[in-house]
C-alpha cells in the first residue's frame, strides 16, 4: 500500500464491496443454482475491474453462521492458479469460498432448523463499513466506496436493530447500499437500506440474465449515475408494527423510555415495567443461572412476536446476560 498516495483517484474510481449470500439452506431450496449465480457474478466482478485500472473489489461471503472476506483485489496475495488455467480473481475467490463454506458448515448445529434461517446480513454490512472506513482513513484521495448486497434469503427479524445501525452509519458517511435481491418476495431490510442511503434496490425478474441486470444497473460508478435512468425506488412503507399484536399501525402509543410501540393505550409500558422490576429483583452480582432462565422465559411470554419486538426481545435478554 506504500504506493497508494501516488495513485491519482478521480471521481469515477469505485471501491465496490460485495456481500454475497452463501446461505446453503436458501440455495438448496431455490430454483436457480448457486454455480450459475456465481458464474454470472464473477463475470460482473471482472467487468468492474476491467472498467478502470484503479477500481477495487472486495467480496464478503455471508453465510448463515458466519461471515468472512473471501476476495480483495488490492491484496498482494492474489496469484493465478499454478497451472495457469484460471485468472487470479476466480482461483482466489473460489478457493476462499470453498474454505469459507466448509467452515460455515462446521458451525451448523446438528439438528436441522425448522425454517430456512436468514443470512447474517448485519455482520456482512458491519464488516463492509469497517473496510470502507479504512479507505476513508487513507487520506483525501480515495476511491468512491459503495456496497452491493447480492441476497436471496429472507430477512432475519433478530438482526433488525443491527442492520438499522449499519444503515444509519452508512448514511452518515454517505456510502450508498445497492441491493440486488433474487428471492421471491421483496426484502424489507434491503429496501430500507437502499432507500435511506440513496442506493438502488432492484429485484431482477429473470435470473437467467442476471449478468445483464448487474452490469446495466450496478456497474456504473456514482459519478455516472447522475446521467443514467436507473430503476427508481418505489416508496418504502415506513409504518411501524405494534409490539402487542404485530399489526401495522397508523397511530400508536410509544413508550417514552424504551420506545416500544403499542396499538392501544396502557397505563404503563409493559417492557419498561418488567425491565424495572428485573433491575430490582436481580442484584447484578447474584444472578443465578436458573433464575435467568426463568426470567428470559418470562419475557418471551410477555412480548409477542412482531418483527421489532423479536429483535428488542433478544437484545433485552442479551443485555440482561451481559450484566
Amino acid at each position, binding site marked *: 500500500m506504500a504506493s497508494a498516495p501516488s495513485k491519482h483517484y478521480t471521481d469515477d474510481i469505485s471501491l465496490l464491496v460485495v456481500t454475497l449470500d452463501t446461505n446453503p439452506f436458501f440455495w438448496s431450496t431455490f430454483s436457480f443454482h448457486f454455480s450459475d449465480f456465481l458464474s454470472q457474478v464473477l463475470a460482473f466482478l471482472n467487468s468492474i475491474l476491467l472498467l478502470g485500472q484503479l477500481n477495487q473489489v472486495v467480496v464478503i461471503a455471508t453465510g448463515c453462521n*458466519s461471515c468472512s472476506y473471501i476476495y480483495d483485489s488490492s491484496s498482494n496475495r492474489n496469484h493465478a492458479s499454478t497451472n495457469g488455467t484460471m485468472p487470479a480473481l476466480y482461483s482466489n475467490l473460489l478457493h476462499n469460498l470453498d474454505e469459507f463454506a466448509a467452515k460455515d458448515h462446521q458451525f451448523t448445529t446438528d439438528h436441522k432448523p425448522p425454517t430456512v434461517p436468514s443470512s447474517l446480513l448485519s455482520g456482512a454490512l458491519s464488516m463492509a463499513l469497517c473496510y470502507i472506513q479504512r479507505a476513508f482513513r487513507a487520506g483525501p484521495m480515495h476511491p468512491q466506496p459503495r456496497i452491493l448486497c447480492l441476497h436471496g434469503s429472507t430477512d432475519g427479524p433478530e438482526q433488525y436493530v443491527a442492520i438499522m445501525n449499519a444503515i444509519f452509519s452508512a448514511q452518515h458517511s454517505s456510502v450508498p447500499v445497492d441491493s440486488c435481491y433474487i428471492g421471491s418476495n421483496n426484502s424489507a431490510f434491503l429496501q430500507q437500506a437502499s432507500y435511506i442511503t440513496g442506493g438502488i434496490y432492484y429485484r431482477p425478474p429473470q435470473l437467467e440474465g442476471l449478468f445483464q441486470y448487474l452490469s446495466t444497473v450496478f456497474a456504473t460508478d456514482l459519478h455516472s449515475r447522475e446521467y443514467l435512468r436507473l430503476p427508481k425506488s418505489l416508496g418504502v412503507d*415506513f409504518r411501524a408494527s405494534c409490539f402487542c399484536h404485530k399489526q401495522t399501525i397508523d397511530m400508536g402509543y410509544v413508550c417514552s423510555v424504551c420506545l416500544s410501540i403499542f396499538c392501544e393505550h396502557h397505563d404503563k409500558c409493559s417492557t419498561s415495567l418488567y425491565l424495572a422490576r428485573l433491575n430490582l429483583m436481580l442484584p447484578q452480582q447474584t444472578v443465578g443461572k436458573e433464575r435467568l432462565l426463568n426470567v*428470559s422465559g418470562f419475557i418471551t411470554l410477555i412480548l409477542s412476536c412482531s418483527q421489532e419486538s423479536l429483535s428488542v426481545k433478544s437484545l433485552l435478554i442479551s443485555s440482561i446476560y451481559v450484566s
Partner: protein
Amino acid sequence: MNNIAGRPLNGDVEDDDEDEANDDGLEAWERAYTEDRSWESLQEDESGLLRPIDTTAVHHAQYRRRLRALASNAATARIQKGLIRYLYIVVDLSKAASERDFRPSRMAVIAKQVESFIREFFDQNPLSHVGLVTTKDGVANCLTDLGGSPESHIKALMGKLECSGDASLQNALELVHSNLNQIPSYGHREVLILYSALSTCDPGDIMETIQKCKKSKIRCSVIGLAAEMFICKHLCQETGGTYSVALDESHFKELILEHSPPPPAIAEYATANLIKMGFPQRAAEGSVAICTCHEEAKTGGGYTCPRCKVRVCELPTECRICGLTLISSPHLARSYHHLFPIVPFAEISPSSQNDPSHNFTNTCFGCQQSLLSQGNKPELSVSCPKCKQQFCLDCDIYIHESLHNCPGCESFRHSKSVTSSQ
C-alpha cells in the same frame, strides 16, 4: 545592515527596516500565525506530502477515557435514558462574546459549533426538540421556540449574531423555566448555557431561580468560554448538569458534542409514559396537495397525518393542525443503540500477544488492516469480550462512535445463540 547578519534567514529586509522596530520584526500577516503555530501540527510523509501528525494513540487514549466514563454511568442507570428531550440552548451574546481569544471571535466560534451541535443532536435524538435563547444587554430573548427542524434554528441564530451589554443568567433561566414548565412530564427538560461573560447582571436573587429550576427538574449544564465561575458551578451541581470550561476551539467542540447523546433518565421519570404518535404513510407520487409547513401546493412526496389527513413535507414533525407527533419507524430505530450500547472492547497490549494462550491474528477483523507495525511487531489492539475478535484502534473508535455494532458478534450466529440460550 548589522541585523541582517544576525538573522541570516530573513534575506530581503531592506524595505521594512522601519517596521521591524515595533512588533518584534513581524509582518502583520505573520503576527496572525504566531499564536496558532499551525505548521507544528504537520509533518512530511515518505512521498513528500504534508500530513497532520499521527495523533491516533493520543486520540485513542482520550476516546477510551470517554468510553469508560460512559460505561460507568450506564452501569448505575442502565437502559433508562431520556430519549425525548426538550433542550434550550442559551447563547451569551454580551460584549464578552466579542473577545478575540477564540478565533475569529468567541461569538463566531459559538455559532459555528452550535450549528454542528444542532445537526448532531437531531441525528442522535430524532424525537427531541430544541429552542434557542440569547442573552445580552441584561435581558434574555427567545430566538426560536422549541421545534424539531435544525435548519430553522440555525438560520435564526446566524441572523442574530450581534453582541452588546451584559449577560443575565437569571433572566435567561427565568425565561427557559417558564417555557419548559409547559411541556409534558415525559419529556426531559434541559438547558445548555454557552457562557462567555465573567459576570451576570440579575434583577433579583439568582439562588431562588436556581431552586425553582431544581424543583421543575430542569437539568442545567454550562460550558464556559472564559474562566470557571462559582455561580455556574453551583447551578450545575444543584440541577444535576455538568459544568466545563473550554480551553480552545477543539476542546469547546468536544464539550458541546458531549451533550448530544441522551443523558441518563432522572429516576422519577423512569416510570414510562405512553405517548400517542402517528406513523404517516407517504403520499402517492402524482397527488397534489397543499402542505402545512410551507403553505404551498406540492405534487407528490410528503406524508399525510393519519388523524387530520393534512399534508406535511418532512418527518419527524408535529402536525400543525392536530398536534400529533408524526414519526416513521427508522426514527425510532435510530434511538435503539442508546438503549443497547455495545460493550467497551478490552485492550491487548503488544507484550501479551506473545503469550501462546492468546490466539493472535495478524489482521483486524473489521477492516483487514495488518495489526503489525514496521518490523513485524504487534501493535496495540483491542478485542471484543464477547466474540474475542481483534480490532485495530481505528475500527474500535468507528464501531463505538458510529456503527454501534460489533462486526464479530454480528457475523457469528454461533456466539449469538450461545449467549441467548445459556
